[in-house]
């Protein structure tokens, strides 16, 4: 290696951007637990697919780890009580998406030991693929990277597709977030157990852990723990946003391109976030359910940033009180600053999809409303778009309200709202927002047409 490595091209994908990382705030802070919030709010629709159906009634006492809602069909997952307490209500709760949705309000018993008493000793080696898929669904596991897609569904690809490779996503390309980094360092054994379970369930021959090369310590740590006889390898990929998008990571690691409108399964790949697999390796041996997750709480407006193991349903207000949110906070974002969502209320709870909470300062220049100038056709957005769309053209069409044409002729549906185009635009055109509006209007039109 040595000198030669300079000439070796780093594994990466085309286009993308290099935002400031800000990861130093929390990268070396170990995962810690926080006290329980007095009340937890567990939305029934925390995942893609059908909302869960409550199994409990108001006034019922539940034990930490007990199932409180069951899955509604295959593309759905159950919920488990994140703490011992009593169900106060099943009512509407605010969410980061906007509309209020049904949620279970759980009043936590202060004096309870908060031990998980739901143990179901399992012999993992004796379990077949189908049993693992069922167990993953029972555990309520969803993609913890932020997509919240039920994990067990990805283990059963559409007929005719065979999963050959499991890609383990440890890129964490969003600025500020470090929870996956810490999981790779601290929950290595659970992670490797989870990868082996995913390999068994999907029937894949190999697994590759893709990690951005700003976390080489994690790569070295994983390589040291991976024994030679396992078909698992850890690879460094270029630190570039959006490296952690599954289609980008597949391109970087395997050189394969997922077809337009296709799934990773079309190229024989299933992608899992490291957090998901670490939880899988942790929960499945005991038959437990997903009741907490690692969340990075960071940003310039947070006094004590860090990585925390947070019970699902903890309201943001409580979480931010624990880390010290100063008066200077101007905006709180669920997820990372690139694709995350600013919340309108701190009553929004931490759900299974929340990988980070970032609080920006009120005077943050990024928050200032910048003057929008006309497009100068510089094509910076074309160079940035990781899925090779033409954001400039799409932007012009959005201004002309030609939303259908955007979808039909310019592949609007391929846009996954990574924000690269708006980030590089020298005219400050809010391109990503335009596309989100266009998509939402197209969705509404489709729904209206479907109804009448």
């Amino acid at each position: 290696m040595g000198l030669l490595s300079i000439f070796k091209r780093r594994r990466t994908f085309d286009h993308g951007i290099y935002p400031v990382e800000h990861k130093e705030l929390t990268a070396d802070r170990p995962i810690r637990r926080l006290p329980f919030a007095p009340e937890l709010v567990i939305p029934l629709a925390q995942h893609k697919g059908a909302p869960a159906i409550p199994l409990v009634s108001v006034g019922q006492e539940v034990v930490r780890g007990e199932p409180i809602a069951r899955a509604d069909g295959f593309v759905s997952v159950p919920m488990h009580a994140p703490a011992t307490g009593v169900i106060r209500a099943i009512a509407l709760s605010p969410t980061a998406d906007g509309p209020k949705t049904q949620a279970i309000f759980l009043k936590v018993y202060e004096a309870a030991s908060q031990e998980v008493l739901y143990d179901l000793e399992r012999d993992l080696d004796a379990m077949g693929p189908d049993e693992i898929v069922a167990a993953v669904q029972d555990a309520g596991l969803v993609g913890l990277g932020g997509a919240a897609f039920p994990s067990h569904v990805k283990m059963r690809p559409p007929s005719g597709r065979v999963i050959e490779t499991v890609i383990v996503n440890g890129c964490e390309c969003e600025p500020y977030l470090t929870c996956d980094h810490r999981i790779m360092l601290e929950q290595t054994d659970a992670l490797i157990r989870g990868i082996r379970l995913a390999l068994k369930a999907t029937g894949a021959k190999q697994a590759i852990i893709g990690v951005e090369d700003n976390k080489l310590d994690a790569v070295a740590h994983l390589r040291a723990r991976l024994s030679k006889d396992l078909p698992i390898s850890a690879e460094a990929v270029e630190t570039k946003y959006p490296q952690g998008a599954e289609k980008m990571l597949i391109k970087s690691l395997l050189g394969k391109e997922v077809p337009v409108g296709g799934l990773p399964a079309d190229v024989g790949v299933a992608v899992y976030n490291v957090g998901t697999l670490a939880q899988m390796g942790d929960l499945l041996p005991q038959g437990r359910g997903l009741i907490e997750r690692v969340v990075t709480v960071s940003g310039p407006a947070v006094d004590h940033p860090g990585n925390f193991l947070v019970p699902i349903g903890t309201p943001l207000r409580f979480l931010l009180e624990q880390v010290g949110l100063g008066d200077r906070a101007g905006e709180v974002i669920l997820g990372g600053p690139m694709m995350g969502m600013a919340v309108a209320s701190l009553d929004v709870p931490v759900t299974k999809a929340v990988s980070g909470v970032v609080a920006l300062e009120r005077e943050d220049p990024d928050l200032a409303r910048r003057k929008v100038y006309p497009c100068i056709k510089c094509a910076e957005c074309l160079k940035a778009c990781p899925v090779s769309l033409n954001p400039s053209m799409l932007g012009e069409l959005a201004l002309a309200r030609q939303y259908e044409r955007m979808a039909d002729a310019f592949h609007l549906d391929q846009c996954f709202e990574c924000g690269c185009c708006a980030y590089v635009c020298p005219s400050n055109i809010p391109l990503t927002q335009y596309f989100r509006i266009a998509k939402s209007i197209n969705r509404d039109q489709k729904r209206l047409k479907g109804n009448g």
Partner: protein
Amino acid sequence: MATIFTAVGFMAALGLLLALILVLANRRLYVYEDPRIDQVEELLPRANCGACGTAGCRPFAEMLVKGEIAPGRCTVNSKAMNQVIADFLGVELGAGEKRVARLACAGGSHVAYLRAVYGGMESCRAAALVSGGGKGCSWGCLGMGDCAEVCEFDAIRLDRHGLPVVDEDKCTACGDCVTVCPKGLFSLHPVSHRLWVACKNLDPGDEAEHQCEVVCTACGRCAQDSPEGLIRIQNNLATVDYAKNDLASKVAIERCPTGSIVWIESDGRIVKGRDARKVVRKGALPLT
């Protein structure tokens, strides 16, 4: 010399041949179209709004001439003009009650509380996509005027509290505002639907009152005061059953404590009940 005669002669022959083909094509492929369709279309407003239920004025004219639809269905034309069409075609005017867009929110900036300041793109749709916007009420009007912008008939304007006001005379019930509103607050109603619940909040009353002063708290007074079955309380919200619209009267709104159920007069004025909380505040409410 011979060259030029050949050329002219050839072109003449070619021209005649092509002319013959055109003549034959005209005979063979002729499609008869009722000349009245064009004449009727002349008499229509040509707004292509779709309020009559067809794709535009031309298809509407075609259906009129075929006698499949009554002229009265066009709500944009004046009644006199529709009568002209009816006389021209020798048909009945037909009943077509004018429909207008109604807004199910009364929470202007002076009565509805904010939970956050939205600082992004000036568009309701964009605001709704960021956590539902800054308004305390998740169902309420965001007041950035997507509807006023999309209305081609200039029938919607924002009042000083950022609440859309529909001009019933100009509204053609084309439905553009219905589709553009990210909160789905607009719906099309016949003008005879005068009893109107201007709220969509589904939160329980005590919680809802912290979000807006003109919220339906589902206290049920309107339902008690009106004839059986006209108003029902569903999901913490009063709902009018318009099948029983003939029974509706102003009595229902009188005891409403917040003024979220209103009576819309024939001139478009919105009347609140006697007991409705008086709002004297002019400016916007502060952030809570």
